[in-house]
């Protein structure tokens, strides 16, 4: 089922709408934002230069740095009287990023989140257990409003208090779970303590997961642990929050709601556009945003896109699940590696859970890569030899597949830091030195 017919419109029709919206967004920022006016003037372009979607390449990029430099409201293009909501990032790596929404922006957000729920098969008959954190983080309220829009019953559980969440999910008979994948996995680990038939106490049929990069292995683990369909949602607060894209039942690729969010893939080093199918940095231009319209926002996320038709009937282009971050790319002794590739190797090792941490450090002048892996019941044995063999197996696989030398360290279960929001997967000590 499609929530809005535009999702399965002819591509020409879709692109015509996108061009119209792009032109009005460009007009809007040119007349309302001194920041963009200056940038356009520098490049010698005016809104009249945008006559096709291709022309977007003439426009300047916007980065997170620009948002920080104009902290808190410098890039808003409406007076505060029209702002209905303000969200903010945690700001762990500097000043927080502040985003604003008008009433109309909120409507767009509700709409795209309603589409996400519909993609996952949710209807007004469902009970949605929302374990995303409520507050400044866009996850909690984004999912809340989307579930409300489709008329589902929402349990606003927010993050934390695992035992209590499990009790509510059991007793209320939640059918849809919305949470980060790592929290879903953590809840499953706790639920499993009740016995191997724990799933008989729950009525979950699907989960909508996001806010963290996720490998195929992690998706499969969450999906198996809960016996549910796994749906991934992509989004970022700078653009809207969750609701930029999500996958349907037919494939792992995420349908981008491109009537609201125009996407491009570029080479992160040169800024050049890359053709469909090639991986590069995802750049998004929201087409309907009022409070904070951004032009060609560089997400820092690595993915690829395709316009191949999907079996579900939607004509919206699709993107791969995020492969990595531009700034997460690790260079280990000259070899480029994305953490997701390491995760893939770990996921393919039998008995190993995906509770791992990558630690990069310098040993003299050489890079040293350590991978901490939690010892699960499945791999715990009475024999040093067997555990040593497992370690070697992973080390060989990393060397053969990714050409990196890693040292695998086995650690106690649940000893790797789990945060309720995002998992701490990589520690690069080289940056601290």
């Amino acid at each position, binding site marked *: 089922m499609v929530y809005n017919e535009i999702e399965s419109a002819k591509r020409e029709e879709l692109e015509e709408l996108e061009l119209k919206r792009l032109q009005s967004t460009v007009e809007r920022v040119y007349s309302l934002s001194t920041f963009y006016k200056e940038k356009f003037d520098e490049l010698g372009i005016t809104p009249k230069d945008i006559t096709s979607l291709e022309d977007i390449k003439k426009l300047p990029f916007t980065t997170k740095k620009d948002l920080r430099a104009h902290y808190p409201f410098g890039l808003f293009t409406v007076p505060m009287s029209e702002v209905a909501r303000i969200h903010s990032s945690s700001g762990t790596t500097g000043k927080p990023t502040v985003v604003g929404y008008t009433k109309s922006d909120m409507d767009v957000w509700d709409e795209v989140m309603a589409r996400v729920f519909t993609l996952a098969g949710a209807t007004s008959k469902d009970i949605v257990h929302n374990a995303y954190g409520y507050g400044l983080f866009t996850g909690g309220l984004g999912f809340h409003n989307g579930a409300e829009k489709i008329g589902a019953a929402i349990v606003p559980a927010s993050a934390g208090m695992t035992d209590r969440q499990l009790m509510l999910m059991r007793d209320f008979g939640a059918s849809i779970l919305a949470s980060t994948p790592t929290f879903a996995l953590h809840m499953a680990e706790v639920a499993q303590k009740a016995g191997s038939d724990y799933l008989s106490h729950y009525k979950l049929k699907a989960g909508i997961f996001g806010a963290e990069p996720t490998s195929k292995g992690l998706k499969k683990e969450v999906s198996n642990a809960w016996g549910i369909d796994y749906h991934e949602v992509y989004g970022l607060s700078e653009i809207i929050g969750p609701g930029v894209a999500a996958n349907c039942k037919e494939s792992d690729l995420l349908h981008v709601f491109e009537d609201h969010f125009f996407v491009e893939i570029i080479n992160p080093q040169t800024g050049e556009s890359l053709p469909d199918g090639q991986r590069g940095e995802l750049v998004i231009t929201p087409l309907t945003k009022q409070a904070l319209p951004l032009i060609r926002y560089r997400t820092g996320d690595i993915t690829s896109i395709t316009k191949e038709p999907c079996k579900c009937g939607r004509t919206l282009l699709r993107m791969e699940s995020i492969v990595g971050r531009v700034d997460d790319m690790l260079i280990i002794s000259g070899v480029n590696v994305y953490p997701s590739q390491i995760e893939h190797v770990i996921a393919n090792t039998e008995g190993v859970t995906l509770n791992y941490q990558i630690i990069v450090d310098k040993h003299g002048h050489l890079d040293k890569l350590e991978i901490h892996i939690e*010892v699960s*019941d499945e791999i*715990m*044995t*009475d024999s*040093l030899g067997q555990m040593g063999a497992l370690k070697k197996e992973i080390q060989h696989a990393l060397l053969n597949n990714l050409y990196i030398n890693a040292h695998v360290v*086995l650690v106690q*279960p649940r*000893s790797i830091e789990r945060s309720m929001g995002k998992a701490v997967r990589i520690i690069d000590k080289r940056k601290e030195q």
Partner: protein
Amino acid sequence: MSKIQQLSIFLENRPGQLTDITTLLSQNQLSIKSINLIDSSDYGILRVIVDDSQKAKEILDDAGISLKIVEVFAVEIDNHLGSFNEVASLLSTHGINIQYTYTINTTQNGAFIFKVEPTLLDKTIELLKQNGIKILEDIRS
């Protein structure tokens, strides 16, 4: 009661990990009857026999420490020369491989703990009994 439940506990190679475990056991009034540590360069396995292995497992599980329960048996040491050799030879002539062995002390006697291939455990105990070798029945004494 011929079989004994041994805890094989995973140990990270870091200071304090061993005492974390022994502290937990003593705080919960669990008495260590025998202990044996094997290690590689960066992790180890602690083999412990306590008076209540199920209770110990629950406590360690809750504390997030990985372990397995493994069945072993104990042969009482007779105070004469060659008593260990007798047992080892008997097993060897019957093709039973000793995976590892260490000692345990009780108030009356000492004993040797033996670990063999789990599928051969019952057969091994039977064999030793038939040959008049005394199997330690109760480690709590």
